[in-house]
């Protein structure tokens, strides 16, 4: 009796499991289905950040007004770790000397090997046997310095001003004594450099270098292009920036000389 009742109960259980499982499957699939449908429905046409969509804010940044002599905001350049440009002297690491062959001897071959049809010999290289000078740029490390330019701010780094001016022989130490003056000239010329007058199709140009003299009273004389950027519109915009800054401030009272020569470079990029 008891066993029969168990069997009945078990059969009842078995029969009862199928139904709930089916129900659970149907309900789960309904749940996931509705989840999917609601997701699709609720996000239809709502492209986040797209035009007309909510939540998107269009921001237009005005970097600065060219022509207004306010300092332009500093732009950040990426640090170039790798520099592909080659140095002047070839000083590649020499190939490792061949390791001596192991002791084991090859089994001598008795058949005579065929001579190759063409005999190629290494061509004679006409290399300069003189060793490179002490200060030679090592191979692969030439080119412009692979550091952010902002490091080179005049005066900001104290008395050293790495890379910006050369003291000593013939150069004097004008930049070291009057870094504020160098900064002032740079600010003035920068604010007068109208990059909008450069050929609009140009995105980048090599450095243009202009030299000029600043006379005692601040007048600019002898402006000329030392190194062209290769693009006439960049060169003329650089020359116009110099001419538009004339005159700059008079030379510092403490400076005894009559004039200072300036080498000014222009790096154009949009």
């Amino acid at each position, binding site marked *: 009796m008891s066993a029969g009742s168990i069997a009945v109960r078990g059969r009842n259980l078995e029969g009862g499991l199928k139904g709930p499982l089916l129900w659970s499957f149907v309900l789960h699939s309904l749940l996931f289905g509705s989840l999917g449908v609601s997701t699709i429905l609720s996000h239809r046409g709502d492209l986040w950040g797209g035009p007309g969509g909510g939540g998107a804010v269009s921001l237009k940044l005005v970097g600065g007004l060219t*022509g207004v002599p306010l300092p332009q905001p500093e732009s950040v350049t990426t640090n170039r770790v790798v520099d592909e440009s080659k140095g002047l002297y070839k000083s590649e690491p020499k190939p490792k000397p061949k390791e001596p062959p192991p002791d084991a001897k090859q089994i001598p071959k008795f058949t005579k090997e065929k001579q190759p049809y063409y005999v190629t010999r290494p061509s004679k290289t006409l290399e300069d046997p003189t060793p490179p000078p002490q200060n030679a740029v090592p191979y692969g490390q030439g080119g412009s310095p692979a550091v952010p330019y902002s490091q080179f701010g005049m005066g900001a780094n104290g008395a050293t001003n790495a890379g910006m001016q050369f003291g000593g*022989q013939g150069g004097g130490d004008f930049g070291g004594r009057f870094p504020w003056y160098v900064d002032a000239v740079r600010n003035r010329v920068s604010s007068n450099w109208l990059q909008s007058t450069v050929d609009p199709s140009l995105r980048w140009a090599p450095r243009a270098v202009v030299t000029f003299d600043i006379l005692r009273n601040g007048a600019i004389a002898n402006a000329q292009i030392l190194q062209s950027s290769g693009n006439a519109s960049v060169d003329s915009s650089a020359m116009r920036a110099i001419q538009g800054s004339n005159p700059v401030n008079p030379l510092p009272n403490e400076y005894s000389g009559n004039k200072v020569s300036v080498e000014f470079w222009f790096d154009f990029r949009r």
Partner: protein
Amino acid sequence: MESKDGYKDGARMRISRLAIWRAAPGLMLFACALYVLVAPAAAQDWFRTGTGLGVSKPKVAVADFVSRNDASAAMAALFSDVVRNDLDYSGIVDLASKSFYPTQVPSVPMELNYQAWSDPPASAQFLAFGNLTVTDTSEEIQAWFNDVKNPTAPPVVGRVYHGDSNEEQTRRYAHQFADEIIARLSGGLPGVAATQIAFVSTRSGNKEIWAMDYDGANQHEITSLHSIALTPRWSPDADRIAFTCYPTAGSILSAQICVYSAVSSRLLNWPRYRGTNSSPAWSPDGTKVMFMSSMLGNPELFIAEADGSRPRRLTHSTGADTSAAWNPKTGQQVAFVSDRGGTPQLYTMDADGSEVQKVELPDMGYVIDPAWSPNGQLLAFSWRRPNGNYDLYVMDIATHALVELTRDAGRNERPSWAPDGRHMVFESTRTGTRQIWSMLADGSAVRPLTSAGQNESPNWSPK
């Protein structure tokens, strides 16, 4: 390239040794000449610098000026505050926060601890400091501006001011000192701390011409005509102010041009013409005045000598032409407002009336109040676009690129450039009443200058 084989060099040396003995006198002379030529060149200083990656603003600290006696304490505080404010508003430096200053304050260069100011937290590159001594009648101010990152460098500015001891004089000296600093740091562009702004105010009951310092201090009435005075314009030498006045002739009020002399503090003689005459504009050399006049019927632009004689008609159109502004750089080009096309729009022409061109803008609306920047490259104006209020815009005249300077802040009209090209003054209704505001020419650092009454139509003095 060095020569490869040694024996050739040796031979050459033997030959040259013989030659040297023979040519010794000539060579000596040549060497002397070379020395004379090269020696000055070796003393020639030079530096290298460049641009392309923006410019950082130098960080400047202004130490509290030390008062040498009890009487000078208030003046010292005023002096340091004005210098600080001037430098802050110059737009070319970053002012170090006062709470980061070292406690030790120098009064003379001997006491200056360079390290304390150049190290964090002050992190200043330059420091302004000095001292004041006030006696019963006079005051003496010693002021320095030093590069604290380069202790060996001589002071950038060192000045002693000596004069009457009153607030106005102290302010003037502070402005002079700040201007000197700004001129040095900006590469020769003078500061504007000593300039003035003329404007129209109703404070005394009528619309009269007033003037104030560039920072809003020292506001004072210039004219008292007890009628209406409008559109003041400084002459290029800042000696005279031309404006539109309404002198009473019997019972008829007619607009005329009046010229006030700031030197002799009185009105100058200027002829009266038929009809309405208004909105004068000085030529950059100060010898001519352009104004709107309806002396021949239709409101047109006329040009006359600075004393008002020999008026000549410049424009010929069916609409009204007014609000002329000369290009201060060239003096060859004039921008003006005309409604010949139906609505007030901006036009340019040559100073002799030829080459009239419409300034094309990318939208409709009213365009009024043109103002040239001192370098002649930018044109500021007020523009009411179809869906908006009057807002200030700046246009690069060469490329016609536009920058909007104000938005969602009342009506903004009548821009006027400061002589340094970095600042602008304008009228705005953003606080509910019409007041004078100034800002940097890129639209930043907006600050109110007036608050009492209704104030409008500002004009920045050219020096």
